[in-house]
């Protein structure tokens, strides 16, 4: 009987955990605030209905630093995503074409020199074709793309 009750408690706890896994992750009070590059209005970085934050995203929200920087696996995935979403405008080497250059030290939005500011531009969008990629990619994917572009900057 006792074994059955324990099983039942475990099941309940598991169900509750599973249930929370699908709820949008609320922003924690110690998290950074993110702002749109145009008017500094606050960006909503809470998880989308079908998005589950990874530990990397949670850490990024806390620190504003991209945990994927320099991580080969994330960089490899970021390269794939860059090819899919970014390179037609920014060119394979990041030198820019239809879109702005991502390398060098001249930037339309100075804030992109920090991970946090850079994320704000990619996630929230800037203008025209630089759309809010938070509509198309998860925040985890955006961090991986950023990690890949960092490698272009260093070349």
């Amino acid at each position: 009987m006792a074994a059955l009750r324990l099983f039942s408690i475990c099941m309940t706890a598991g169900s509750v955990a599973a249930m929370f896994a699908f709820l949008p992750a609320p922003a924690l009070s110690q998290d950074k605030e993110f702002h749109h590059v145009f008017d500094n209005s606050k960006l909503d970085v809470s998880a989308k209905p079908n998005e589950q934050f990874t530990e990397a995203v949670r850490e990024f929200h806390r620190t504003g630093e991209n945990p994927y920087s320099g991580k080969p696996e994330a960089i490899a995935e970021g390269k794939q995503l860059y090819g899919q979403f970014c390179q037609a405008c920014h060119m394979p080497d990041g030198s820019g074409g239809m879109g702005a250059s991502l390398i060098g030290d001249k930037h339309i939005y100075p804030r992109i020199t920090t991970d946090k500011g850079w994320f704000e531009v990619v996630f929230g969008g800037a203008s025209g074709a630089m759309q809010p990629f938070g509509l198309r990619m998860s925040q985890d994917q955006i961090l991986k793309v950023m990690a890949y572009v960092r490698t272009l900057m260093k070349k």
Partner: protein
Amino acid sequence: MTGRQTLLLAAIGATLAIAPALAQTIPQTPAEVARPGGTVPGNPKLALVKVADGFNDPVGVSVANDGTGRIFVVERVGRVKVVGSDGKVQQQPFLDLTKTNPLGSEVQTGFVEQGLWSIAFHPKFKENGYVYVHYSSLPFNGASIVARYTADKANPNEITKDQMNKSVKVIMNIPQPYYNHYGGRIAFGPDGMLYIGKGDGGWEGDPLDAGQNMNTHLGKLLRINVDTPDNVPYSVPEDNPFARADYPRMMSLFGVTEEGFSKIKIGVKPEIWASGLRNPYMFHFDAKSGDLFIADVGQNSFEEINWQPRSSKGGENYGWKHNQASHCHPTLSPNDKCPIVGVLPVAEYPHQEPYPGGQKLTEGWGCSAQGMGVANYGGLDKTYIVGDWCSGRVWGIAWDKAANKWQMQELMQATFQFTAGTTDEKGYILATNCFCFYTEDKGPIANPPGGLWRLVPASEVTAGMETARVKTPN
């Protein structure tokens, strides 16, 4: 000459010296072409206010001018949605080209420049119910089709599938060589004729030389008369500039002037109103003056805006592919030398990197000019409003009487990818935006939904209105 005559002439001379500006003119030299950095008369403070959203790749917008205040938003997939005067979007499409053909959609949407682009309402729509659409056809391998449908007065907010199939009249079928540069907008001019913006047929660099080849409809603005019997698709207006240029005739070698010979153009398409265009996706008539503005999308370097006064007899050649705006094509450097072919634009703006390998601009650039309509409010007078597809910049282009030149001003920069525009029944500019840029396009119903916006004087924004996120240049 008497002293009195001398005085009179002196007075006339003085009057001329201080006379107001000369009439609005087309630039005669590249230096006269307006560029970003000017100030349009009125120098207005404007805002973009949301009208409605939730549209699948909205790429066109029109109004019926029937007094209902309805707005018709064109969805690339092949549907037209109705927005009521209360801003509510009717779920049932006004017109749906994806359902009329039992074998599948009527509309080819494989590439982002393909789809349904435009709907135009006959000037007597209220009486005859005629609407015209322009789209790339799936059954005709991407050819562009102009077709007429008739709205049922008993069901004014929906042309049902049965009604569409019963009433369809195909006006034009123009084969398309490549999957880009179709043009798009169709609109009735103040003369009651239907104008059709046709791109050069695509690829890049105009490999078919369509802009200059008068034997093709591609790379042109076309003008046709659709008020014909039902068994006649359309007729060529007698006053089209090349209406008779290809008429059969006896050959005379003598007694004909060189000017006379120059008017013989064998094989020329009589529907041509203007040539030398690359991709005139958007063009608009000014309701006030009847003047015509054409936003011709450029290639890698410059966007151009052309203007014709109401008095134009047509026949303008805007120079593509010899020129790109007021520059040479191919555009290689600021020092390029080449002849200017035909008529110069009134305004132009650069891409971020206007010359290969040149310094990248951080201000005042774009990549694709989408005309949105002519504004005559909020201090603006006959001002063409153009939104850019890449940079979200909104430009105003207007003749400045005081300065006696064209002016181009960046009115604001929005976060949007602008696609199209028109003026509503009250004359305000309407604009659409999508999330359908080339590299992110996932298909016409898979992309994030776009919106419909109204450009209003900032002083008319009231509490409760949702305004777009914009930056105003310093």
